[in-house]
């Protein structure tokens, strides 16, 4: 893209973004900037297009118009390194029922780090994170055997096991107990302190997590 030199924004920057889903325009010519070290809260009613916007920013849903930049380069450009830096946790948990918790987490970590990871220390890291989440010792349980809340915790454990610079989280606080909400808020703040970009949605206001930027999606 010839315009890419003009972009002055670090972090994630969406320029004149138009997103539609099933012939319905959800977003028209919107500019959105998620700077490093900021937490952005995306709000909107059910069906307003929060998830579609997130999927578009994650590069899964092609935009009708507009470009999304990551550190001044279009995300589709191989040099942007966007997909190395991004963890996108969708509403579906993306875990296989047929694998154990540890196998699921290890697979994603290996895929992201292209196998350049010490397997023994990865196993230790997995045990450590699961303990923090209150599901320690369940590493070798099948994913299908867990309760909905526990499954959700396993999906969140990925955030701690894979290095990233931007988190896009669809409803990360749903289904969580008080303690885990606090844990996730702490970890999100720590990630922000290290220069991370965070975009998340939620139905309720999260008291534990101070937000730097609010972005709303509204129905026409």
């Amino acid at each position: 893209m010839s315009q890419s030199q003009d972009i002055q924004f670090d972090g994630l920057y969406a320029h004149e973004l138009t997103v539609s889903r099933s012939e319905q325009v959800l977003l028209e010519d919107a500019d959105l900037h998620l700077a490093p070290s900021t937490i952005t809260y995306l709000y909107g009613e059910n069906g307003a297009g929060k998830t579609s916007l997130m999927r578009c920013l994650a590069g899964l849903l092609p935009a009708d118009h507009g470009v999304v930049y990551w550190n001044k380069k279009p995300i589709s450009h191989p040099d942007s390194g966007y997909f190395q830096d991004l963890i996108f946790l969708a509403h579906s948990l993306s875990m296989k029922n047929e694998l154990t918790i540890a196998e699921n987490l290890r697979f994603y970590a290996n895929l992201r780090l292209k196998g350049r990871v010490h397997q023994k220390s990865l196993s230790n890291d997995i045990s450590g994170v699961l303990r923090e989440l209150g599901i320690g010792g369940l590493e070798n349980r099948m994913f299908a055997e867990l309760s909905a809340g526990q499954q959700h915790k396993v999906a969140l454990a990925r955030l701690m096991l894979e290095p990233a610079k931007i988190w896009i989280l669809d409803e990360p606080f749903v289904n969580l107990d008080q303690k885990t909400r606090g844990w996730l808020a702490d970890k999100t703040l720590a990630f922000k302190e290290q220069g991370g970009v965070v975009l998340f949605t939620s139905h309720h206001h999260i008291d534990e997590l101070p937000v730097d930027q609010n972005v709303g999606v509204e129905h026409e």
Partner: protein
Amino acid sequence: MILTLLKRELKVARRNWIGLAIPLLFFIIVVSLFPFAVSPEAPVLQKLAPGVIWVAALLAMLLSLEQFYRSDYQDGSLEQLLLMSSPTSVAISKILAHWLLTGLPLVILSPLLAVLMQINYGSAGSSHTWVLMLSLVLGTPTLCLLGAVGMSLTLAASRNGLLVSILIIPLYVPILIFGASTVTASLENMRYNGELAILGAFLLIAIVFAPFASGRALKISVG
């Protein structure tokens, strides 16, 4: 990267082996019923054998396609795979795993069916069996590759089984024709090199284009 994906596929499949056994069982049952239904005499069965075995193999592959991509699409892991690796390598690893788990077992089981269908009857019997296996080795990967394209195109449609069948059966027909006629030629003691070469050509073309096409279609289906 492909190795990581492949290892995961095989691990999931191992825990879910019943789903994989069904197409194989289907393959065996269909072929083994023919001697009962038609006639156990060698000349009759030999005439039917190439067609019956190849049709059964094709239908077994079609039956197994249902598992291609479907569960990954439903539980959201396909999305994650596409984010974290290239669509083509996702397709390659899926196709490879799928062939190892369905195509290869079909090839391994085929000598058994050759016995049932009296292909190994007579002095040149074992060479006919080898030709059958060779035709399946060259043909079934092509069926997998084409099936992958069909499945990835129709993922977003619910109940896509029928749609896929309509979409890819016309593409399967040439492979069926040359696969079965390879074995027929061998049984009639004629040269079968030409048929095998064409099966090989189909395979090479499919290897070049199908993973790429399937990967692109996956991107579209997920978007």
